[in-house]
């Protein structure tokens, strides 16, 4: 299963420990984009150490004051347009966690 999950909060959903997928995408939107941009106590968000593809929504980054160069290099930045393609082409199932 190619599974993409939306993370919309600046808190790691516990269920991520348990979801199994052949390909897992983590899409950071809304307050989820802080995972890609903010270090807490000097540490990047633990979510970024997971075995997954990471994406962050550029519109939600910009809304909160982050330019793309503030984004962790593990994370691919895409806009709504790119998000539609990602959903249709790269993943089969999508969960909003």
């Amino acid at each position, binding site marked *: 299963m190619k599974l993409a999950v*939306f993370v919309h*909060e600046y808190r790691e959903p516990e269920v991520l420990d348990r979801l199994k997928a052949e390909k897992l995408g983590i899409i950071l939107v809304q307050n989820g984009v802080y995972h890609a941009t903010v270090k807490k106590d000097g540490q990047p968000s633990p979510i970024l150490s997971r075995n997954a593809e990471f994406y962050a929504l550029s519109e*939600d980054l910009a809304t909160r004051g982050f330019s793309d160069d503030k984004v962790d290099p593990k994370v691919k930045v895409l806009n709504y347009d790119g998000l*539609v393609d990602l959903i249709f082409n790269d993943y089969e199932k999508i969960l909003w966690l």
Partner: protein
Amino acid sequence: MGKLTIGCFSSLVGSLTLDFAVKLAEAAIKKGHEVDFWLSGNATMLAKKNQSKFRDYSHLAETIKELLGTGRFQITMCEACGKARGIQEEDVMEGFQIYSMDWYLASIYNADRLVHIGGE
């Protein structure tokens, strides 16, 4: 081209979740896809007519109107969720459909992709 169904549940108007869902729909429509949009829980507020446009509050009525104009966009309010909030038939914006929850389940049946925003 495919069909995307978006379900927005118990979403806050006033959060940007409905805005997210509408922008996603807009981007999909622009790419030629077809979009079904289901409003349940507090998201039914999107259906209320006469929403004033202020800069301090998000305002989605005009975008929805444009999307409806493409003929590839359907938007449906959960009947009970709306009525419980006082959003009766006469309160609903033009172009919105009103159905029971089974409409959403049927829409999903042949959707190529589902983005179900089940709460926050």
